């Protein structure tokens, strides 16, 4: 019965991955990617792989969103400068 | 750096250092001499960064 948590974690990860693909706007996608990283961390923990889970949490919760949002900000600023 | 500010700086660093050493002792499971040495040096680096961070934010 300990598989119940594996099934739930996998289903949530599949749903969040689909949501990440379905979201078109990069800023909103970064939000969904952050939650996806979190759920992947849970999947790795549940499958008894804490090292991989730790890597996923370390990178996915703060570093990836920061990189994506900085790029989005640069592209949006470059867009505004171009129109002026 | 008058004597007073040097004292204040040392007190702040010491306070941060003590707090971070306690934090390190809470984190680790088995406590032995090597852990204490590594913990003390890591806490020192953390204290320096804490002070540098506070000063960089306030000093305009």
């Amino acid at each position, binding site marked *: *019965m*300990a598989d*119940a*948590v594996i099934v*739930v*974690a996998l289903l*949530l990860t599949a*749903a*969040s991955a689909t*949501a990440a693909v*379905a*979201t078109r706007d990069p*800023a*909103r996608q*970064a*939000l*969904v990617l*952050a*939650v996806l990283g*979190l*759920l992947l*961390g*849970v999947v790795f*923990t*549940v499958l*008894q792989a*804490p090292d991989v*889970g*730790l890597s996923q*949490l*370390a990178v996915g*919760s*703060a570093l990836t*969103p*920061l990189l994506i*949002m*900085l790029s*989005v*900000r640069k592209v949006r600023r470059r867009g505004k400068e171009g129109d002026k | 750096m008058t004597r007073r500010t040097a004292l204040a700086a040392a007190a702040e660093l010491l306070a941060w250092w003590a707090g971070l050493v306690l*934090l390190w*002792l*809470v*984190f680790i*499971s088995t406590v032995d001499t090597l852990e204490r040495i590594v913990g003390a040096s890591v806490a020192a680096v953390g204290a320096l960064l804490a002070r540098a961070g506070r000063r960089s*934010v*306030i000093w305009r």
Partner: protein
Amino acid sequence: MNGWILAATVLLTAGGGAALWGVATGPLSRRVVAQNLSTTVICPSLLLLAQGYGRTSYVDLALLLALLGPVGTLVFARLLADELTGDRPAAWGLTWTAAGVGAAVVLVLCAVTGPSRAMVKLLVIGALLISGNVVASRALSGGLRGVRDG
């Protein structure tokens, strides 16, 4: 199937599902709040899993999430500040309930582990999680136009 893993599953399904649904749909302000809540909900479930599997080394995962989760929300609060100025996301009710759930889980686990350094570690994680959650929601609801530093 011990109770801890069952509790973690329930928390993961309810909290994780709600946070995922919140972050995937609706206005931007609600999505950001949902992302903040996802950290506050999944960290206690990691703690419960650590207790359920009987491995204290898994507590480091919850510690890391309690530290970096709010940092991720601060990233969004900071870099989406101009888009969030329109509708202020002030979901304080949800924030406090999630913080309450986290606190309850941490206290129960502290009671189980008994007075030891491991219990202090759990308390540190609980404190980091709740303070991070509150500060992140404070940053989301207009924190980044706040008082100018002296």
